């Protein structure tokens, strides 16, 4: 074998045909990393972008694997070796071993880029560096190895067929199919269900990693990468079973069996809570919208009971599995109405004696029948929580999301975005989370991943996050991009809120100081988020969406949370928000013409323009709408200059808060102050 390795090394390094392309791949990789380093990227964006280089690796190592292993056949020396037992097999694996250090070196360069970025940003969070290493292994090293093995498997095939196969494999393993077919469906089945089997490189181009979740590296993704490694190695061994003898045949069979196990695990990924940020029907980008379109929210209503105690036993491996024991305030009802996110399948409900109770599920609603009354239920359920992921990689379960049964029929969705559930009466929570990760909660900690205390709700977070203290406040967020915590000034935020309350007449309070602050992961912030989720305040903790959390943004989103989010007043709401967050200023010019705003009355939002079927008319309308929107902004600024900003803020806020406004948004703003 040593002789074969020596030969293989000499063949590789003495020929420019393979060394030069490797140098090129290395140079492109380095240049890309340097370019990324020069850009103003957060470490996690840098990680995402640099992992896309993995496709280069698959391409180069597949071609190099093919060229190196097929070289002897093309030269006519294979037959001579085949007469010597084990020689062919030995040489083949020597070729692979020759390329492996190059693959490792190339992967190390990519990881080196991550490490440089890590140290340059002054991060002090070793788990993130480990995460980067694992990500490089999963999305660069293993796909490269798969490519190399594929190339070697094609050794006996002619160049056109081999190159064609390799190109097809590159296409299938890259994000191209994902971008082409993710949104499609064939006979009700997403083509991605098939393409997923080949999808080895980093998730698609539109995809951004999450500082808390990191790069998706769920178990099934590892299984897929390992499956291809095992299967291709088994194929290679099988091809040389006669040359290698019985041991090779046995090894091939063992590898194939292991590959089948990996394949089975991957095939069962449907049970896992995966972060699938593509447009496939089941992915987090579109699944909830589709579900809400198909399942209108039923009748809402508060519960006529309250929960005194929750005992939650959670397991977060592939997906969330919960056993929730609920102690109620009264036992004289025949039916108890709860809200539990529809993604969780209720397996059983038992009473305190362990006897099964009947229940019905209607979307997010869970109604439990207890003909003889019951004081305590235990609900067993498992499943997936859309963008609120809970698996072995991370847990993102904000307390406003009903991942446990919340009393009453509550609204989780309104006006095209997720709603947060707040205002529940306090209850005693006992939470036990079975996961190797460190879980953070608003509740007092009683043991490893065990929490107990009285609170409105229980928020549970885990992943690439940590707890840091600043100014006496605990912040739970990802240390990667923790700089946003620096911009949070809770005292100033409270003062600003007071000012705005005086201006607008808002009566709610915003008490922030002394509470734990959870910074939401990007996935929650960027996906289906409404104003309701931007700032969620509980008695003991606050959840801030991952944004530039200045006092203005916190107050603005908290203020907007109480406003109806109907499309008819969307434009004015946007202008109002803009004014609150960055200010719009005054306009001392002429008041915009009312007729110029006519299209805004006809189509209150840009989406409404989609009603126009004719393409030409649509383009004209969009142009007109854009111009009118600018005029609308100008009108707001003009009103500020005429009436004063405080007056406009107050009047607009009252108008937006009005559940039955008698004027459309354009007429209201135009007529504001009676200046028709």
């Amino acid at each position, binding site marked *: 074998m040593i002789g074969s390795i020596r030969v293989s090394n000499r063949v590789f390094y003495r020929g420019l045909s393979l060394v030069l392309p490797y140098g090129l791949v290395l140079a492109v990789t380095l240049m890309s990393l340097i370019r990324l380093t020069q850009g103003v990227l957060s470490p996690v964006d840098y990680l995402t972008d640099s992992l896309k280089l993995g496709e280069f690796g698959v391409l180069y190592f597949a071609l190099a694997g093919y060229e190196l292993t097929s070289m*002897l056949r093309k*030269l006519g020396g294979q*037959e001579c070796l085949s007469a010597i037992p084990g020689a062919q097999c030995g040489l083949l694996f020597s070729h692979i071993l020759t390329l492996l250090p190059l693959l490792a070196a190339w992967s190390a360069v990519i990881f080196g880029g991550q490490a440089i970025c890590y140290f340059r940003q002054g991060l002090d969070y070793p788990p993130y560096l480990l995460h980067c290493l694992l990500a490089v292994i999963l999305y660069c090293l293993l796909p490269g190895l798969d490519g190399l093995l594929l190339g070697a498997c094609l050794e006996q095939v002619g160049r056109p067929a081999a190159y064609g196969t390799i190109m097809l494999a590159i296409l299938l393993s890259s994000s191209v199919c994902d971008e082409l077919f993710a949104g499609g469906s064939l006979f009700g089945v997403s083509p991605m269900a098939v393409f997923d089997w080949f999808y080895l490189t980093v998730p698609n181009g539109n995809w951004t990693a999450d500082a808390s979740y990191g790069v998706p590296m769920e178990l099934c993704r590892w299984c897929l990468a390992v499956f291809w490694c095992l299967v291709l190695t088994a194929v290679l061994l099988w091809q040389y079973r006669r040359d290698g003898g019985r041991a090779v045949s046995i090894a091939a069979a063992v590898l194939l069996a292991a590959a089948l196990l990996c394949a089975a695990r991957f095939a069962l990924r449907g049970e896992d809570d995966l972060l699938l940020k593509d447009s496939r029907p089941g992915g987090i980008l579109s699944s909830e919208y589709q579900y809400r379109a198909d399942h209108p929210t039923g009748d809402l209503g508060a519960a006529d009971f309250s929960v005194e105690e929750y005992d939650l036993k959670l397991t977060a491996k592939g997906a969330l599995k919960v056993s929730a024991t609920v102690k109620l305030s009264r036992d004289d009802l025949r039916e108890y109405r709860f809200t539990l996110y529809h993604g969780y399948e209720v397996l059983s409900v038992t009473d305190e004696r362990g006897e099964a109770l009947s229940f019905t599920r209607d979307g997010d609603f869970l109604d439990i029948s207890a003909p003889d009354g019951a004081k305590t239920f235990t609900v067993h359920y498992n499943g997936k929580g859309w963008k609120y992921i809970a698996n072995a990689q991370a847990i993102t379960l904000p307390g406003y999301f009903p991942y446990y049964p919340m009393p009453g029929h509550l609204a989780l969705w309104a006006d095209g975005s997720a709603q947060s559930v707040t205002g529940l009466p306090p209850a005693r929570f006992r939470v036990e989370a079975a996961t190797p990760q460190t879980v953070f909660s608003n509740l007092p900690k009683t043991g490893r991943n065990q929490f107990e205390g009285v609170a409105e709700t229980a928020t549970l977070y885990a992943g690439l996050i940590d707890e840091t203290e600043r100014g006496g406040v605990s912040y739970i967020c990802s240390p990667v991009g923790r700089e946003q915590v620096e911009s949070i000034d809770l005292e100033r935020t409270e003062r600003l809120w007071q000012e705005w309350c005086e201006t607008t007449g808002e009566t709610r309070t915003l008490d922030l100081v002394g509470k734990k602050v959870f910074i939401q992961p990007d996935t929650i912030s960027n996906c289906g988020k409404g104003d309701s989720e931007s700032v969620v305040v509980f008695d003991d903790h606050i959840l801030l969406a991952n944004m530039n959390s200045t006092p203005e943004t916190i107050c603005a989103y908290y203020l907007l949370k109480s406003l109806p989010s109907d499309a008819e007043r969307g434009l004015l709401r946007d202008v109002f928000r803009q004014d609150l967050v960055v200010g719009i200023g005054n306009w001392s010019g002429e008041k915009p013409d009312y007729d110029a705003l006519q299209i805004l009355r006809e189509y209150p939002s840009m989406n409404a323009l989609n009603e126009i079927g004719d393409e030409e008319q649509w383009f004209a309308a969009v142009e007109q709408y854009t111009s009118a929107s600018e005029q609308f902004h100008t009108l707001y600024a003009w009103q500020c200059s005429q009436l004063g900003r405080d007056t406009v803020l107050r009047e607009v806020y009252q108008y937006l808060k009005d559940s039955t406004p008698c004027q459309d948004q354009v007429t209201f703003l135009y007529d504001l102050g009676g200046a028709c």
Partner: protein
Amino acid sequence: MLEVSHVEMRFGQKKVLRGVTLTLRQGVYGLLGPNGSGKTTLMRCIAGVYHPAAGTIRTPERIGYLPQRFGMFKQLTVYETMAYFAALKQIPARAQRNEIMECLEQVHLADRAKDRMGALSGGMVRRVGIAQALLGHPELILADEPTAGLDPEERLRFKNVISNLRGGPTVVLSTHIVEDVESNCDHIVLLYGGTVLTEGTADDLRARAAGKVYSVPADKRCLLQQPYHLLREEAETGTLRVLSNLPQPGNLAAPTVEDGYMLYIRGRT
């Protein structure tokens, strides 16, 4: 000793070897037959490249094999190529250098040991192929079309190499060139249509054709009695060399191995 017993080989529906049985002892054997007779397939079966569909092949442990087409990595030197084969044949490291140089000497390539394989001519590469087959003192040497691509001088050298092997290993040369067999081999195995037609010495083949080869003046062509087989026209002497069981005009000629070979082949067709 090489024992081939009832070996059958097929490629798809086509039966290439049909129960070949041979016992080859020490000496130089020529495996002779027209193209498509199964020579290369039989050689590959013996070398272990192919696994026969039926029958058994018993070979000595140490085999040297020169396939019909031989090539090695162009990036390696001649010496490195030989060292690789030496390692594969598990020749002890301390003995490798001497043995490699010895083999290269035999094929007159010792002075090109440091040259890259890519810099060698086709004939030289072939000689490296012969040299690698000689490595490790094989008890059986299989050479498939060993002289293909060699110039006359190199063919002569090859003949000398084979001569030097006499009394040593069993050597099997596969070829369709009768002259090669005649000049190099002690024994001849005639293969046709996947079966052994005959085996024996060159003299046996010549004897088979004795009294059946005629040298007929070209102007008496019209007097030739059917059936006969025209071996060749000899322009220099103005005669035709004819093979026939019937008396023909002209003189009986001294038979050659080629005459015996043709007699067998014609007899089958």
